[in-house]
């Protein structure tokens, strides 16, 4: 929409040029596709038994079981990281330095760390100082500290985006400041931040794939088990990729729909 206003609406010459470019690029794409297919064919990747993860019910069931664990990990992690994030956001917005400074420290620190390093720290670092937990919780804890820091910033932005007037109107009606926050500011912040939270959910789903390293039987881990068992890397990981893309585009789409609804309401 906005791009069409940036550039002139195409006249007949421009339209013809666009049509030619479309045809040329389509032909080029098809040819690239054929070259890839030829390569796959030559390397015997089209042999049906290599693709059994796509049609053999046992393998599909095994991958779907992984997907189910992925969704469980994400559901649990989303709740824990949202709680952790709210806590951090409130700390960062607090006027009390004792809350604010540690919150800033925690948020900025974990935002600056690679997720895998956090996973390794939880997996290899914590046990050697006597803290260990089942792999499932290792993954959840790692996601929680990492995503929690991201969530905190989303919530903070959401709270800061509430117009001052809202707060002032609440105070003017005689509500105590704490209630103004819980019943006026906070619900609006949650509503406004939902689309951003949905894109963070995609991030969490992708992060849960590090169950591969921790040893949680989630989707990527199960794809690895299949690839180990069958020796077909490409097919096993492609199958997992398809499932990840389907889930994540669905979540993104729902987030975008939600954002549209917020805007139009």
């Amino acid at each position: 929409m906005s791009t069409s206003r940036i550039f002139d609406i195409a006249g007949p010459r421009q339209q013809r040029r666009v049509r030619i470019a479309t045809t040329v690029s389509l032909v080029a794409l098809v040819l690239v596709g054929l070259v890839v297919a030829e390569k796959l064919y030559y390397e015997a990747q089209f042999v049906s038994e290599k693709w059994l993860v796509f049609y053999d019910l046992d393998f599909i069931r095994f991958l779907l079981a992984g997907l189910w664990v992925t969704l469980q990990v994400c559901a649990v992690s989303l709740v824990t990281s949202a709680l952790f994030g709210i806590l951090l956001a409130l700390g960062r917005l607090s006027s009390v330095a004792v809350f604010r400074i540690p919150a800033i420290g925690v948020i900025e620190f974990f935002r600056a760390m690679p997720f895998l390093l956090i996973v390794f720290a939880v997996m290899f670092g914590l046990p050697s100082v006597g803290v260990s937990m089942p792999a499932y919780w290792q993954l959840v804890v790692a996601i929680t500290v990492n995503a929690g820091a991201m969530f905190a910033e989303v919530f903070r932005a959401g709270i800061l985006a509430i117009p001052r007037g809202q707060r002032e109107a609440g105070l003017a009606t005689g509500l105590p400041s704490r209630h103004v926050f819980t019943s006026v500011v906070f619900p609006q912040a949650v509503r406004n931040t939902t689309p951003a939270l949905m894109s963070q959910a995609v991030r969490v789903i992708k992060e849960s794939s590090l169950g591969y390293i921790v040893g949680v039987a989630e989707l990527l881990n199960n794809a690895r088990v299949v690839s180990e068992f069958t020796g077909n890397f490409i097919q096993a990981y492609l199958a997992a990729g398809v499932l990840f893309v389907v889930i994540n585009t669905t979540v993104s789409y729902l987030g975008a729909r939600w954002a549209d609804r917020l805007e139009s309401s």
Partner: protein
Amino acid sequence: MMTNMSERSPSQGAVIELKDVEKSFGATKVLTGVNLSIAKGETVVILGPSGSGKSTLLRTTNRLEPIDSGEIWYHGKPIPREGRELAAYRAEVGMVFQQFNLYPHKTAVQNITLAPVKRGKQKPEEARARALRLLADVNLSEHANKRPGALSGGQQQRVAIARAMAMDPEVILFDEPTSALDPEMIQEVVHVMKRLSADGMTMAVVTHEIGFARESADRIVFMDEGRIIEESDPESFFTNPRTERAQEFLGKILNH
């Protein structure tokens, strides 16, 4: 009324001529059977309630909006639809916008010289000298090297007018040039426009500045719901509007 004008051929001496122009945005019809011709040296003021299609009329004239049907002529020839020809046409038709639309990363002088230099019409030094003269004309000499962010709204709009002038245009289209300005800045812009008009510039102006319309307009065009429903000289339009809609409109605007 403006009926049965469709068979009319390009008028002699008309710089811009719109013929049976129709335009819709989706299901909303914004221009219906618009016919208008602007002669050389003429100042045409277009009035009408908001949403009546005034701005769209100007924007289609510059082909910022393509039209659905009808024709727009420039010096008796249809305006180009794309490419270099369109750019060349636009260079001859200046436009001033409600929101000034200066380039934020360029100084006042650079805003003015960009198009002349890039179109290869003027050498950089030549363009700069001319830009400084134009800025002096609009009383902004001391602001020549400031970026738009450092200028007030009125100053920005005067730079925008100087920018439109820099191409030596045949016509300048003004799209509500004072609507976004604080009241105390309106006069400085109106003053510049009045001078342009007095100097014989061909102008089409969408505005709510009745003072400007009374003093400078050669002709008033009144639009409502996408149609031109009245066209007359300012004197008779303001003292004796023919249509009810125009009376209503003037009643609201003048009592305000």
